[in-house]
């Protein structure tokens, strides 16, 4: 059924269709509307046979989900940013225990400085935590990925994180198709755990494992993630057959044929990139796009297949590994390792802390890549004047004070906050 609704509401309705049995809620912007919606559905009886638990922290949210999942219930929670960091210990624990919890991550920057707007720093902080990480491009895909996520998680008995861009997807009102319950029931069977706490068959779960077996336990976790590489495309195909639309999968290409330059990106920014590619194609530039949906497990074979023979790649990502550069670019580099004619990878960090990624900036960036590109990490729309001013100010005196506040003062002194996006030239 087509509905004109907020992304969070669409996700909440899709999650409800998956019949979760335990939902743990703790507020943090921008995921909060999702659990608010679910809480309301439990109260009104629209979602039955479900325990909705308001917990006291994100650490508790995931811990309650861990207990519920280990006891055989379909468990769901949602978080963002600092919340994901606060539950970090439980994030690793859930995957180590092989518990098929589904969690929405409303992607948001990590502080300090505190910032509630969108980027992918939070997802990147847990990229090695053993969770499947799927990135949604649109509100529709955000809703659909949740239905697929429960099936994927439960089939392989491992947790899945559905990453959705904060505000851009969570708060945007768009037309979204919410499928009928019967179709979702046919796609997603009831949860049959591979391990469960049950007094009738008492077992111990969570024993201490020493050097004699730890490597094997970890290897099998890795093996399980690699099985997801086969299962994810199968589920996306089955989903397409039943629901009539393409959602999920490992990756998607757009106008990639005969491309001289392929852009690689995750999440909602792919829409803007497609517009830019259409415009550049119209003027004869051979550019295309690879939308990475499955970030973990990293679909190395699929990436080598689509990227292996292209001369140039721009990796555009909303995350920065301080002291290294773009983590996604780094992953791409390792995915394409040892190719005979490996593409030239140009790394660009964009949209940090919610800075808009404009078509004009992307045009400049892709043109620059076609003209030979750049080395190292490029920071799209970096206000170089402000940065240089702050660096010299810090050089002048030892007690230069906090950087963030100083930059805000400088911006206010100039032409107001708009000065922040004046743009830098490549």
């Amino acid at each position, binding site marked *: 059924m087509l509905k004109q609704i907020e992304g969070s509401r669409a996700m909440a309705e899709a999650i409800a269709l998956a019949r979760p049995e335990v939902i*743990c809620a703790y507020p943090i912007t921008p995921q909060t509307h999702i659990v608010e919606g679910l809480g309301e559905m439990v109260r009104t009886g629209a979602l039955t046979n479900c325990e909705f638990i308001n917990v006291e922290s994100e650490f508790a949210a995931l811990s309650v989900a861990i207990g519920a999942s280990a006891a055989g219930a379909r468990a769901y929670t949602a978080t963002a940013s600092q919340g994901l960091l606060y539950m970090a210990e439980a994030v690793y624990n859930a995957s180590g225990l092989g518990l098929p919890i589904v969690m929405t991550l409303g992607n948001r920057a990590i502080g300090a400085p505190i910032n509630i707007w969108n980027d992918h720093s939070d997802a990147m902080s847990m990229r090695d935590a053993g969770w499947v990480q799927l990135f949604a491009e649109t509100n529709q895909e955000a809703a659909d990925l949740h239905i697929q996520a429960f099936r994927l998680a439960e089939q392989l008995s491992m947790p899945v994180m559905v990453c959705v861009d904060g505000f851009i997807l969570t708060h945007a009102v768009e037309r979204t198709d919410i499928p009928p319950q019967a179709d979702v029931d046919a796609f997603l069977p009831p949860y049959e755990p591979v391990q469960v706490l049950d007094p009738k068959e008492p077992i111990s779960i*969570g024993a201490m494992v020493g050097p004699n077996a730890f490597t094997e336990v970890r290897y099998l976790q890795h093996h399980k993630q690699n099985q997801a590489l086969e299962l994810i495309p199968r589920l996306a195909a089955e989903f397409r057959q039943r629901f009539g639309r393409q959602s999920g999968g490992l990756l998607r290409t757009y106008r990639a044929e005969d491309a001289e330059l392929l852009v690689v990106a995750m999440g909602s920014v792919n829409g803007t990139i497609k517009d830019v590619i259409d415009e550049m194609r119209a003027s004869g530039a051979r550019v295309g796009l690879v939308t990475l949906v499955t970030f973990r497990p990293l679909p190395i074979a699929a990436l080598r297949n689509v990227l292996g023979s292209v001369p140039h790649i721009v990796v555009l990502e909303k995350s920065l590994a301080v002291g290294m550069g773009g983590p996604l670019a780094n992953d791409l580099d390792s995915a394409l390792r040892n190719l005979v004619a490996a593409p030239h990878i140009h790394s660009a960090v964009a949209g940090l802390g919610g800075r808009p990624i404009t078509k004009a900036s992307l045009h400049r960036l892709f043109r620059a890549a076609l003209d030979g590109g750049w080395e190292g990490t490029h920071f799209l729309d970096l206000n170089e004047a402000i940065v240089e001013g702050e660096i010299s100010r810090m050089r002048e005196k030892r007690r230069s004070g906090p950087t963030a506040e100083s930059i805000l003062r400088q911006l206010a002194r100039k032409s107001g906050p708009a000065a922040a996006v004046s743009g830098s030239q490549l």
Partner: protein
Amino acid sequence: MNDMSKTLDAVQKLKFYQKGTLTVGNRLVVEDERSVQASLDRSNALTCGHRACQGCGEALGARYAMDAAMRVTGGNLIAVNATGCLEVFTTPYPETSWQIAWFHSLFGNAAAVAAGVAAAMRVKGRTEVRTIAQGGDGGTTDIGFQCLSGMFERNDDVLYICYDNEGYMNTGVQRSSATPAAARTATTPAVGDAPGNVFGQGKSVPRIAVAHGIPYVATATVADLHDLEHKVLKAMSIHGARYIHIHVPCPLGWGSAGHDTIRLARLAVESGLFPVFEAEYGHVTGTRKIRHKVPVTEYLKLQRRFTHLFKGSVVDEARISRLQAICDRNIDEYKLLASQGDA
């Protein structure tokens, strides 16, 4: 009155004050008043072969608590364990001493994980299955405190049992917020002007539990195992959030003899240092009276963690009297002497 409450009352009324013996004397009482441990059909929830130290109070307390819980639930029990001694010494992979459904997630989340288990059982309509969370004092009064308070506040259907050995014993005897003043630990060494742990304000998690107004709170010791069993039986007859705080001496961490575990637990009560009480819905409903009041020094002298108080020519009278003052305050607060009437 149903059979269960009749049994509970019978257990409660029993007193085992036999002269010259420290045992509960099961053979002297009628069959259905005997302890769970004395019965042939006890579940051995925590069975033999585990790796606890000789004289471990926690192993003893956990065994009695879990068998009592298994009896009252007819074996329909799921236990969630915080990281710590109890977790480590019972489950060195691939061995386990637990003959019950048992789950370990993390150090600081046992109360939340148990709340999740209880929610799963509720949503699946398996109301006969009950949930217990258990942890040491570190996993309860320090790192697990937030999850514990959240579980209390929501009144989740979980019995949380804290085995309080007054320190981080599993990591090598470091101070916790349950470590008594003046005690020597690896992080409060017996050196300097004021050796051992500082005199802080203390942190009574049982009292904090009472302040949450939850249905049932009790303290107990391994010196009175019949009382401990009774409290577990009683707790399991109630739904909602419940808390039992058990004082469990630790020979390794306290520097005491393994054969003194029960004696130390008794002296902690008899000195007034560890008040034994029950509370329901925010109010203290009963205390175990001190039978033979002893000065706190009798308790301290059996433990090497306090030897610096008595070393050399000068006994540290000042700090010993501060410890005695804590005991006296407890005695007044909880009316622990028979002459003080009911609390």
